[in-house]
């Protein structure tokens, strides 16, 4: 049994140079712990999509993670504009991203649906004008997501 561990990374809006650095660090933590590759990939993808959302839309935010023997849970909280209609934001292809974001290869409206697809449990809460909090969990033991 390895002890649970947790940590936090801070995210700065519009800092495209370091966009992805937090998810990359989280990936490194999981690799060091010897988490299976498939689970690392799903966690990294979900974390990166969430991190890019903060970089693109928010002023600042943070990514907190906790890894136990049974699951990885990640919370991404931002101070941003918030999402007026979460159902709409969860629709594949729906995006409010400006052109310069699309030119970077993001903002095609796949981010939130992809986080949902990559994780075992996903919750999003948002307040317009205040920010968005997103939490997801990926199971580590006896419950790898069924993908039949």
């Amino acid at each position, binding site marked *: 049994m390895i002890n649970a561990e947790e940590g936090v990374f801070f995210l700065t809006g519009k800092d*495209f*140079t370091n*966009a*992805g650095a937090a*998810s*990359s660090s989280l*990936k490194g933590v999981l690799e060091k712990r010897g988490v299976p*590759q*498939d689970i*690392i*990939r799903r966690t*990294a*993808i979900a*974390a*990166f*999509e969430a991190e*890019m959302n903060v970089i693109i839309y928010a002023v600042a935010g943070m990514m907190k993670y906790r890894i136990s023997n049974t699951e990885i849970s990640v919370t991404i909280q931002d101070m941003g504009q918030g999402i007026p209609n979460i159902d709409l934001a969860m629709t594949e292809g729906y995006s409010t991203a400006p052109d310069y974001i699309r030119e*970077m*290869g*993001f*903002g*095609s*409206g*796949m*981010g939130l*649906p*992809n986080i949902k*697809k*990559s994780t075992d449990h996903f919750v999003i809460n948002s307040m317009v004008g205040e920010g968005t909090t997103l939490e997801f969990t990926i199971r580590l033991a006896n419950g790898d997501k069924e*993908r*039949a």
Partner: protein
Amino acid sequence: MNLAEILSILNARMLTDHVPLQKAVESAYCADLMSDVLSFSVTNSLLVTGLTNAQVIRTAEMAAIEVIIFIQGKSPDSQTIKLAEEKRIPLLVTDLSMFDTCGKLYERGLRSQFHHLNQAPIITVRAQSL
């Protein structure tokens, strides 16, 4: 299909240092939308793209993509190349268009392994050796 074969098929150049040419990939994916790469690509594959920013490297890192090929002679800046070297992701550049790049790789046996996460995976077609 290994890197030496890919370099020869595409008449491509290697942008990153210290890459073993026998490194091989099983499938390919092509997109300029990084969100699509994150949603639909599979591991042990190469990415053909026309985007050259640092987010491409990050996307490949997260999606566990093994090799990136830039098309139409587009090279990323030195910082992006450095990031790829740190992450041990070989970067190649070809002067071919995206259509021709994919066409030539397909012709020589490389296939996509495209599948939607909610659907059953398509049966893998392994790349033939030269």
